């Protein structure tokens, strides 16, 4: 004798044995997790639930009123596990990936000081990273500005103040 749980799947009431319910519940939770980043996830989820209801309905008859764990296992075998059929990254997130890329290249264009790799405040390192110019060249240019013009030091200090500090070289 087994206890049963009655549940509503896609608008139809089914009686499931307790362990059958537990298995199905785990499956659906897992499915939800995999669908998290997929476009149209609610619809896909509803479609799959509806298919489960359809398969269950086919199993029940006059002499069989309860869904057993074996039934649930079979339905899961037919449907497959979410990790087999849901491509979290590839399919629908094409657009999202592109978005991420443009964001990354935008952020690369923000000028930041890099004090970890710099001599004084990382202004030269920041400039070299921003323009993709050789660091020695930038430093040399600044030294020349220090020595031969009046504004080299001033320029350095102004950049020191206005440029935000990078948290990592990746910034």
């Amino acid at each position, binding site marked *: 004798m087994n206890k049963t749980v009655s549940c509503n799947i*896609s*608008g*139809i009431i089914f009686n499931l044995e307790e362990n059958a319910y537990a298995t199905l519940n785990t499956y659906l939770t897992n499915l939800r997790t995999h669908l998290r980043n*997929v*476009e*149209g996830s609610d*619809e*896909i989820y509803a*479609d*799959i639930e*509806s*298919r489960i*209801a*359809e398969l269950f*309905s*086919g199993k029940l008859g006059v002499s069989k009123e309860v869904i057993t764990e074996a039934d649930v296992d079979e339905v899961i075998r*037919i*449907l*497959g*596990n*979410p990790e*087999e*059929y*849901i*491509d979290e990254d590839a*399919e*629908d997130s094409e657009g999202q990936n592109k978005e991420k890329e443009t964001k990354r290249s935008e952020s690369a264009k923000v000028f930041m000081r890099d004090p970890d790799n710099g001599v004084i405040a990382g202004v030269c390192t920041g400039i070299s990273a921003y323009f993709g110019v050789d660091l020695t060249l930038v430093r040399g240019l600044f030294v020349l500005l220090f020595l031969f013009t009046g504004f080299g030091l001033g320029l350095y200090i102004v950049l020191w103040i206005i440029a935000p500090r990078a948290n990592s070289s990746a910034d």
Partner: protein
Amino acid sequence: MNVENTKAQMRKGILELCILAILKNNESYPSEIIEELKKNKLIIVEGTLYPLLTRLKNADLLSYRWEESTSGPPRKYYALTSKGDQFLEELKMTWEELSGAVNHSLKSTKS
């Protein structure tokens, strides 16, 4: 490099073409599409179909209508839109080209 993975990728690309081709001839609900695909060993697990159908529908290639069923929940009957029809024709052409090219290169490496 996993051969099963490569096989699955190959199948997946062709699956969209097959779904559209099945729906061109007649409006169907998912279980019918699945049956057709399984018959031809194009699908291994049913779950694959649902994200695909939703994607094709969101791209306006498919439309659906609800129909009550006597033996279960209401069914979604999918049909090709005119955009889907065009899409199918293009995929078909690409498939013809590809299968010809692939067969050709497989033959020429054999000899």
